[in-house]
C-alpha cells in the first residue's frame, strides 16, 4: 500500500538535480561580494534597533497601531458553482473592544453590476475576486482610520496590490492617510520581487543569465535586525509612488519586505524598527500583531459551511454549492 511508483521517485530526483544546478551560481556567490553589490546598486544595508519604551509610549499617545487583514473562504466546486466569502478586519492596539469588520461575497452566479466577463476568462474572473478582497481590506482600513485615528496602519501584504486591484478606493485611502499624516505600511511575508536578481543579470561582468528572486538571494544573507532600504530608481514600485525595504526581522533566515507611501519615505526606518519590535525573535519574521489580526479575521471552513447551511435554503445550497468532492467520504 505504501509503495511509491518508481517514476515518481525518479522525477523528484531529477527535480533536485535541475534545481541544484540552477542555483549553484547563487549558492557559490560570495556573501561579502553580494553585500557590496547590494550596497552599491540597491541601497544601503543598515542595522536597526527595536523601539524604546518611550517611543512606544509616544505611539500609544498618538493613537496606537491599526492592523488590517482580510480572509477569503470558498465553498463549492468548479466555476461557476461556488461562492467566495470575504472578511476584512481593522483592529487597533488601543481599542481592543472595537474591531472593525467588513464582509462581502462573490459568486459567478450573481451579476452585481453587469460586469460579468463576456467570455469565461479565468483571469478576469480572478481579478474580480482579488478586487473584492482588496476592496474589503481597504474599506476596513478606511473606517479604522476615521474612527480610531491610529498613528500608523500595518496592512498584511504589499501596498502595490491595492493599487493594482482596487485603484479608486486605494487612492481614497492613500489621500486620507497623507492628509491626516497617518503612516501606511504594508508588510510582505513572502517577497516575490527580483530587484537584486535583475540587477545581477544586467551586470555584464558577472555573466549571470538567469534572473533570480530576491527571496533566494537574500536567504540567510542579512543579520538579525539588518535592513536594506531600496533606492527609488531600481524598483518599479517607485513609479507607482512607493518606497520599499527588505529586512530580516527574526532569527529565521528569510527576509520580509515592507512598502510605504513615497510621501512618507522619511518613516521608512522608523517603521522597520516598529516591525522589528513587534516580531518575536524566534518566530517566522511576521509581526505578532499581524498574526493576531489574521487569526481573528480568519473564518474556518466549517464555520462558513455552517453559516451557509443555516441561512441558505437547503435546495439552493445542494443544487448550487455542494460539489461532488464535498460528498466524498473515502
Amino acid at each position, binding site marked *: 500500500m505504501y509503495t511509491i511508483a518508481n517514476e515518481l521517485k525518479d522525477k523528484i530526483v531529477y527535480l533536485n538535480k535541475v534545481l541544484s544546478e540552477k542555483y549553484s551560481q547563487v549558492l557559490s556567490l560570495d556573501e561579502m561580494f553580494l553585500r557590496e553589490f547590494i550596497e552599491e546598486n540597491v541601497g544601503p544595508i543598515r542595522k536597526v534597533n527595536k*523601539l524604546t519604551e518611550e517611543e512606544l509610549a509616544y505611539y*500609544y499617545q498618538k493613537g*496606537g497601531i491599526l492592523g488590517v487583514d482580510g480572509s477569503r473562504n470558498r465553498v463549492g466546486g468548479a466555476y461557476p458553482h461556488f461562492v467566495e466569502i470575504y472578511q476584512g478586519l481593522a483592529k487597533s492596539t488601543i481599542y*481592543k473592544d472595537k474591531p472593525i469588520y467588513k464582509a462581502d461575497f462573490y459568486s459567478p452566479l450573481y451579476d452585481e453590476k453587469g460586469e460579468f466577463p463576456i467570455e469565461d476568462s479565468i483571469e478576469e474572473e480572478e481579478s474580480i475576486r482579488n478586487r473584492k478582497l482588496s476592496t474589503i481590506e481597504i474599506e476596513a482600513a478606511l473606517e479604522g482610520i476615521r474612527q480610531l485615528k491610529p498613528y500608523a496602519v500595518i496592512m498584511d501584504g504589499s501596498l502595490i496590490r491595492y493599487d493594482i486591484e482596487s485603484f479608486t478606493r486605494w487612492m481614497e485611502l492613500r489621500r486620507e492617510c497623507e492628509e491626516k499624516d497617518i503612516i501606511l505600511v504594508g508588510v510582505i511575508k513572502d517577497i516575490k520581487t527580483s530587484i537584486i536578481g535583475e540587477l545581477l543579470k544586467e551586470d555584464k561582468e558577472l555573466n549571470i543569465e538567469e534572473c533570480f528572486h530576491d527571496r533566494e538571494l537574500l536567504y540567510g544573507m542579512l543579520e538579525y535586525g539588518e535592513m536594506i532600504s531600496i533606492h527609488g530608481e531600481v524598483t518599479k514600485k517607485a513609479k507607482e509612488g512607493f518606497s520599499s525595504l527588505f529586512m530580516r526581522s527574526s532569527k529565521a533566515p528569510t527576509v520580509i519586505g515592507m512598502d510605504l507611501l513615497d510621501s512618507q519615505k522619511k518613516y521608512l526606518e522608523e517603521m522597520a524598527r516598529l516591525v522589528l*519590535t*513587534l516580531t518575536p525573535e524566534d518566530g517566522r519574521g511576521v509581526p505578532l*500583531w499581524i498574526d*493576531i489580526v489574521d487569526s481573528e479575521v480568519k473564518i474556518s471552513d466549517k464555520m462558513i459551511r455552517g453559516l451557509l447551511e443555516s441561512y441558505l435554503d437547503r435546495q439552493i445550497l445542494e443544487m448550487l454549492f455542494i460539489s461532488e468532492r464535498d460528498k466524498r467520504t473515502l
Partner: protein
Amino acid sequence: MKVVGITTQQEVYVGSKDRNFRINEFLIISDPYQGDLMGEIVEAKTYNKYIPLSIHGELADSSVIESLKALGYNIEEDTIYIGKIRLLNEALYPVETGCDVRIPTFDEVKDIMINSPADEGLILGVIKNTDQMAKDMDEEYKNLLYTFEEGELKKQRDIPYIFNIRSMHQYPHIGVFGGSGSGKSFGLRVVLEELMKLNIPTIVLDPHFEMDFSQRGDYMPKEEEIDYRDKFKCLQVGFHVGVRFEDLSPQDLKNLLDASSPLTDAMNNVVDILFKRNDSYNSFYNRLKMLAEAQEEGSLDRIQLRIDSADSNLEREGWLKRKELFLTYDKTCPYNSVRGIIWRLNRLYNEGIFSKDIREIEDGLNMGKLIVIQGNTRILQVFSTYLLNNLYHRRRDYKDALYKKTTAEYFPPFIVVTDEAHNFAPKGYDSPSKSILKEISQEGRKYGTFLILATQRPTLLDETITAQLNTKFIFRTVRASDIQTIQEETDITVEEARRLPYLRTGDVFISEALMGRTIFARIRAAHTTSPHTENPFDELKNISKAEDEKFMQIIKNKLPINGDDFINVIKEIERDTGITYTVNIFEDKLEDLVTKGLIKKEKTPFFNIYKEI
C-alpha cells in the same frame, strides 16, 4: 460564565473570559429546562490562543508582548478560563450548552456543606474555596476558627468544616491517612482538642509522647486561647498506670506475655496449667521458678537428695514443695517452655507493668476526660491489649446488662485514638492488640465505642479494620501503593487521587459516608502545640550558645589570660566553681571563643595573651 462544548449528564465544561476557576469550587448551572444544577469544579485550566505552547520556537516572546502592551494591547486579556464541573447529582438530560453558570448562595449549599450545629460537632477546619458563599453565612458559623496560610494566622473566610460526631452512631470510626509531615499528627491534635471541648471520654495511645495539650500556641490571639489543662491527663505505662496482676484472666495474661514476645503452643499450655485464679505476681512467679529449679535437678532422686541433705528446715520445706510441683507438672510443662514464660514475665515486670493499675484511666473516662497513655510502641501494644479489652468489655457488660434488664456498673461510651495504627493492627500477621481493635471496629458501634486510627501506611493496616472506617481524612500521600489503597478504600476520584502527592501540609480530603462525597478542607490552627516543635538544629545552636556564655562568665574576671599561666587560672577556676579543665581543653575553649569573636588573642614571642574585646 457559560457552559461550553459538549456536555453530558455528569460533566460539563464552563468557560469564562474574566474569572479564573478554582478547584473544588461549587457552582450552579442554570439549565433552562432542568432548573438549577449544582456542581463542583474538578479541573481548572487557562488558555491563551496567542501564547500557545509550542516547541518549535514560534513563541510570542516576552519583549514583543511587552511592546504590544506599551502600544495599548494586553495580550494577557485574551486569556480564557475553562473549568470542568462534575454535577453532584446526575442530571436527567445532558446540560444545555450555553446556559449561564453562577456562584451559589450560602443557603443553597448549606445542606451539602454543613450537617451539624457548630456547638455540637467537631470544628476541624474550613472547606476550601468556599469564601464566596461564606459571605451570607449564618452568624453561628462565622469566626469559629483560624487557619495557617503560608506561615501566617488567618481569620476564617470560608465555610467551616464541622464533623458531625453524632453521625458516628450510624457511620462509626475514622481513619486518618497521610505521609510524614503532611499534617496528620497535627490534624489528630485538632480532633482531640475538639473532643476535649465536648467532654467526650477518649483514650489516646501515644507512642510519640506528643499528645500533650498544656502548651498553648503562642500564635493564637489572647482572647481566643482555650485552656485544656484540666481536660486531659498524660499517663505513662509502668509509671502512672499498669496492670493489676490479680485481675488478670489466663487469657489476659497470655495476651500480655504474647505481646512481650510471641508464645508457642507449649508455653500457652504452661500458663493454662500453672496460672491459678487470684494468683499474685509473686505466687505465680514463685511457682514457675520452683518448678524450673526442680526440673534443673533433672530427676526425683536428685531432688530427694536435696531434701535429705538440707541444712535447715526452711530449705527442706522448699525442696519438698519443689518435689511436689515436679511430680504434678513436669510431665505437662516442658522445662524450656517454663523458662520461656519466666523470661517473658520478667521482662514485663521490669517494665513496671505490674506495679500499677488502671483505676486512674477509668476515673478519667468517667469524668469525660481525654486520657493520653504514653510509652514506647512495644509497651503500648502490650498494655493497650489489656486496657482496651478491659474497658471495652466493661462498657459491653453494662450495655448487655441494660438489655437483659440486670444490673451492672455504669461505664461511659468512649473513643479510642491512636497514631501509627498499623503497629497496633497490622495486616498479614496477628498481634494481640489487633484482635481487640478488630472487635471494636466490627461491633463497637452497638456499644458506643469508636476508633480514630491514624497511620502513614494505610496499606499496612488490617483490611477488615480499614473497611470499617466510615470517615477518612486523607492528607498528602506520596507512596504509590498507599494512594492505590486509598483509592480502593474511599470514594475519592481519579483526579483527586492524582492531587494527593501535591497537597499542602494541612490540606485534606475528607471522605465521609454521611456526606456521600469527598470534601476538600484545610485543618484549622491548633490551640495547643506539640512539645516536639523546636527544630533540633535550633536546639543545637542554642545549646552551644548557652555553653559559650557559661564559659565566658567563668573566665570573664580572669582576663587577660597569659598563655604561660593556664595552670594557675585553671586552679583558680577549680577553686571557685568546682569545674576542672585540662590545659588542652582550656586552650581549645579559649581558641573557640576567639574564632567566634567573643575574645581576642594577642601573639607575643613567648606566649599568646587572651584579652577582652
